[in-house]
């Protein structure tokens, strides 16, 4: 597998080339977009490049299509001309071919195929990140409190749910998970700002931290889990919930957090005698980094017999991805991950 990591050399150059080609093939763009739009255009082009190259490195058409549908909807939600996406990506395909040689040709081929497939899908086809029904029950109340900046109330809703007799392991992810996914959809639809999204997720994390004394009060049986997000990956709430689920399930867990350097993860896993390591990636862009981390974990001390779990959003989009990144398994959430790992160490 050819790993092309985000921030790859020449990324900016390719993006700039693509933008120049777009503007010269479509002179009307210069008139339609305000002056200075080229910078924004280059940034967007770089984002496309990073996602498309990651999908190509992973040989994943599903991930590419999911990204294309997601970005198409995002552009529409921002009130920008969706019709420009297709020609802009065609220009990107040419630019990547021109700069990257044969590897660029593979990327361009996948991109063109993805665009054709997207055209064939019904127009209402949506990215998995944009799908999902309306929120109900405590999740809806929790989100309403968050968006009203009423953090004490949001906390009270979680404490209420747990006091009602439900166990923490089942309750927290069931309330918080759907609320956070809805936060993502609201942001994507332009109904809340990134700032509001950020406040809501920061508050959620701190509220959930109030359960740590209870979570760590459970008896620990012994097997050690070490969990970390791939390098460059900043989404850590999901993996934290998975890790907490293991802690509640009697494991001793260590959560290394967002964007963990691979060597640090490998050293820590060896030192702590981990039976299982968990690696998370939430965007396509960080899956290649997850794959190289997994490769390092295999060959580093303690790697023999140690099981590797991989998970996060891309692994739900492309069901077979975990195999291709070299993991031993995946799971949609903490509950399933714990069941699988308990099986491994039994």
């Amino acid at each position, binding site marked *: 597998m050819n790993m092309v990591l985000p921030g790859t050399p020449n990324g900016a150059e390719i993006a700039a080339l693509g933008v120049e080609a777009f503007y010269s093939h479509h002179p009307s763009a210069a008139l339609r977009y305000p002056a200075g739009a080229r910078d924004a255009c280059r940034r967007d082009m770089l984002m496309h490049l990073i996602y498309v190259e990651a999908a190509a490195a992973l040989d994943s058409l599903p991930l590419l299509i999911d990204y294309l549908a997601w970005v198409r909807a995002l552009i529409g939600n*921002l009130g920008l001309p969706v019709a420009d996406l297709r020609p802009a990506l065609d220009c990107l395909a040419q630019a990547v071919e021109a700069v990257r040689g044969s590897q660029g040709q593979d990327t361009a081929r996948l991109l063109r195929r993805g665009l054709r497939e997207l055209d064939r899908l019904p127009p209402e086809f949506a990215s998995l990140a944009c799908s999902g029904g309306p929120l109900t029950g405590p999740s809806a109340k929790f989100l309403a409190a968050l968006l009203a900046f009423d953090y004490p*109330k949001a906390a009270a809703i979680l404490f209420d749910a747990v006091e009602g007799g439900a166990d923490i392991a089942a309750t927290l992810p069931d309330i918080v998970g759907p609320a956070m996914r809805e936060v993502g959809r609201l942001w994507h639809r332009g109904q809340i700002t990134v700032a509001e999204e*950020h406040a809501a997720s*920061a508050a959620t994390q*701190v509220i959930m931290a109030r359960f740590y004394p209870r979570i760590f009060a459970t008896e620990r049986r012994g097997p050690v889990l070490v969990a970390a997000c791939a390098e460059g990956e900043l989404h850590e709430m999901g993996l934290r919930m998975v890790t907490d689920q293991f802690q509640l399930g009697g494991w001793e867990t260590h959560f290394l957090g967002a964007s963990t350097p691979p060597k640090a993860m490998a050293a820590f896993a060896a030192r702590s005698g981990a039976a299982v390591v968990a690696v998370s990636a939430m965007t396509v862009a960080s899956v290649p980094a997850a794959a190289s981390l997994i490769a390092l974990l295999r060959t580093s001390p303690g790697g023999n017999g140690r099981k590797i779990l991989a998970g996060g959003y891309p692994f739900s989009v492309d069901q077979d991805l975990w195999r291709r990144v070299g993991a031993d398994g995946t799971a949609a959430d903490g509950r399933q991950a714990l069941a699988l790992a308990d099986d491994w160490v039994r």
Partner: protein
Amino acid sequence: MMPTTAGTVLHCDLDGTLREIRSDGLGISSVLEIARRLDHQVVAKDAVMARDFIAASKRDGAAFNWMFAIDLAEGPALFRFDGSVFDGGLLVIVGRPKAEAATSQKAIDAMSALNNGLVNRLREMARAAPPAGMGDQRSPPPFTAREHEVVVLLLDGLSNHLIARRLEVEESAVKARLRTIYRKLGVASRAQAVKALLG
């Protein structure tokens, strides 16, 4: 697409000190103007919310120092903010429309890292603490949503009668909730409860 993050930041400390921070767009500015202007600047604009968050921050102890920000020029109606936990507080940056996108992205990443760092420290603290009795000492009294409603109005100085009217419940229900609140706070009177809630 990106939020704007340059502008005025208000950061509330546990003792109620309100710091007014001029943000240079990177979230945390080098100039900290410490301004004890809570009464004039926050309370005057939205007393209930201000008191509520201060009460919550005191109740929650060091790790839960919530803050409430308003753009000093525009008032609470124009919330455009980016918040994260910082030094044990929730730092909120009130946005100004013209900040550069790349800068605000950096600010977002920096804030996110600060927030993550804090939560991870809390996780390690919980591991290190002896399990027995830990929950009781550290966690704040877990008020239910109904109790929380009463707490807010109690701090506003409302009588049982007025609280009952505001919440559209019987006065006896208010008294019952107050008894649970007192028990959770470990106090015996209304005055003690207010004192405990406000630290």
